[in-house]
């Protein structure tokens, strides 16, 4: 069993809402007397799941009963919506603030990167800032000196290293700052969203650097809204919701749960003139049974019923299929099969059935968007209204292990010796 390097036990963190400055002294006195008399703190609400929208409490729990063990060498991605408590958790671990309840035990040197360029002083030169920032992040002067050239090379601002950073472009500033942070060598590294800096090339470099850090066996905790980066970097993941840790496991399971959560919470996005509109739609198997799961290579039906609110000469219908990273994977149109929908009179209700044959997308979760319209415009468009999963099975391909998730489509092949 691997070694546990971070152990979070029953941690909660409470924040006070509103203006802390007013009425604090009376609060404090109130608390003080209550404590002195051995009563419960009158100003504190315990055990209530009062999130930001709860109006009754003056206090809010940013984290509640978080328990987590992180092992040596694990690269853990933390995902969740804004306000789910991810950053609070990182702040507690990086010792910026203390938990209200519970304990965090840490083994080894820890460095946190909650922001790039913390403590950069605009008047100081690039070189002076490298030393200052490095020291703030916990390096000694000696360590920084030994890595100085590497840092400068990585940042690509060699020419300007003796210029005050206030004269830097914002890109140069950020690159220099990230370069310092990237050369930290702690046993545990905590990273919050910092990859969202610089141009595409630099981001690639930054992700590469992070990967090499994680490959060197160090423990990395990574918070990001960039799920692709999380999937690339991390092996394990946790999902935070409303200050609670709701899921723990392999990173792909976590990110897909998170994506699913986002879809569920978004209302269906629907647009169009509604000259003709969808009344209902469903996905069924070939026996007419509604399903949300098919095997690779299966056929399935999508049936959509629509009502015309006016007379229509002709109309097209399409199905767009997107994967869970919102990439456009498949497109189906009635013209593909020389099928025509035309001369619909007002009030008519039409049901159209589309059979999709031999689905060959890589196993995973997909969303179908339905569109009705013609060359003059959109009548009705419902985004990602049908969700379904493709399972690998053994009908289409026979490999006994999971298909490589990086590939988007699965091709059938025949093998032989010649």
């Amino acid at each position, binding site marked *: 069993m691997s070694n546990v390097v971070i152990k979070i036990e029953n941690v909660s963190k409470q924040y006070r809402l509103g203006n802390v400055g007013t009425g604090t002294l009376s609060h404090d006195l109130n608390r003080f007397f209550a404590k002195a008399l051995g009563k419960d703190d009158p100003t504190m609400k315990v055990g209530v799941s009062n999130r930001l929208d709860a109006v009754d409490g003056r206090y809010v729990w940013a984290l509640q009963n978080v328990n987590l063990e992180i092992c040596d060498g694990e690269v853990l991605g933390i995902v969740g919506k804004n306000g789910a408590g991810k950053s609070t958790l990182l702040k507690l671990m990086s010792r910026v603030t203390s938990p209200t309840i519970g*304990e965090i035990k840490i083994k080894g040197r820890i460095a946190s990167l*909650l922001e790039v360029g913390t403590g950069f002083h605009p008047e100081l030169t690039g070189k002076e800032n490298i030393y200052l920032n490095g020291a703030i992040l*916990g390096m000694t002067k000696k360590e920084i000196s030994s890595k100085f050239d590497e840092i400068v090379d990585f940042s690509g601002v060699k020419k300007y290293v003796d210029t005050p950073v206030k004269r830097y472009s914002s890109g140069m500033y950020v690159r220099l700052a990230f370069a310092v942070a990237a050369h930290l060598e702690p046993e545990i590294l905590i990273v919050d969203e910092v990859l969202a800096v610089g141009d595409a090339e630099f981001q690639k470099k930054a992700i590469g650097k992070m990967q090499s850090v994680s490959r060197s066996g160090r423990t990395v905790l990574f918070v990001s809204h960039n799920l692709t980066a999380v999937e690339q970097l991390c092996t394990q993941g946790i999902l935070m919701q409303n200050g609670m840790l709701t899921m723990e496991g392999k990173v792909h399971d976590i990110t897909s749960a998170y994506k699913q959560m986002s879809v569920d919470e978004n209302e269906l996005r629907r647009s169009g003139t509604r000259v003709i509109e969808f009344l209902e739609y469903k996905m069924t198997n070939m026996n007419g049974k509604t399903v949300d799961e098919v095997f690779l290579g299966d056929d399935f039906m999508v049936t959509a019923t629509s009502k015309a609110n006016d007379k229509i000469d002709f109309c097209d219908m399409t199905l767009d299929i997107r994967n869970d990273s919102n990439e456009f994977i498949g497109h189906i149109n009635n013209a593909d099969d020389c099928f025509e929908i035309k001369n619909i009179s007002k009030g008519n209700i039409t049901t159209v059935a589309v059979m999709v044959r031999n689905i060959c997308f890589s196993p995973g979760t997909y969303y179908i968007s339905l569109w009705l319209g013609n060359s003059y415009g959109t009548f009705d468009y419902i985004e990602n209204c049908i969700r379904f999963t493709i399972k690998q099975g053994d009908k289409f391909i026979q490999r006994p292990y999971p298909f490589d998730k990086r590939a988007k489509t699965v091709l059938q092949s025949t093998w032989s010796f010649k």
Partner: protein
Amino acid sequence: MNTLNTDLQSNILPDEWTMILRPKRNLLDINLHELWQYRDLIMLFVKRDFVSKFKQTILGPLWFIIQPLLTTIMFTIIFGNIAGISTSGIPKMLFYMSGIVGWTYFSTCLNDTSQTFIKNASIFGKVYFPRLALPISVVISNLVSFLIQFVFLCLFLAYFMINGSDVSPNLLVLWIPFLVLLMAGLGLGFGIIISSLTTKYRDLTHLVTFGVSLWMYATPIIYPLSEIPEKYQLLVIANPMTPVVETFKTALLGVGQINYFHLLYSFCFTIVLLAIGIIIFNKVEKTFMDTV
């Protein structure tokens, strides 16, 4: 049951974890060892303060000298010539300057450290390092400017002696390093207490700036200790800065009162103040991000 288990475990394997973060820690759990590990950072902060202060100025470090010099001239005109306050026969310029140089060190330490949490909230909110590193670096960088001013004061003194003024620096100058320590300790102690309290109650920031300048008048800077009327004597002596400044002036100028008992009082005061300051600071630094 659960907590019991945890306690047991941590008792059995106390060394297993490098760090345990708890909601509350012992008041006296002050990690000076960690502070020492961050000594490079302290020195880099000192350098930062020093460099950034004089970037894009023409006169640069000359400002260290201009400030006390102009204040001395002001005091000479107002308190010496217009108000006619006695300087115990010492040349007025010299008398005021020696007081100002000492006082400036104390007051800048106090003013600057009292802003620690508020001014550095953005750094403190993002990364951990021993928070005491910042006020200590402030005290050190102010020490540098004090030394420059002190050298200037000595040159000034030498000039007056060559011109035959009746001043006699004496062996008491050996006390000066100790006096400087007291000034630094008092400034730091008051400063960190105030900075800890200002995270919640901002009122103190308004008080500090003018409070310190009022305090100067309760310290024998512009008047000799011997000139104080009987009824105010206690007030001035209760001021821990009084013996420090008075000894400082006596050592350099040869005229004044030196009372080792009062010095001992200042010393004890400083130690107690620093201890209280560090304890409060240590308690506040853990959660101040939530209130600042």
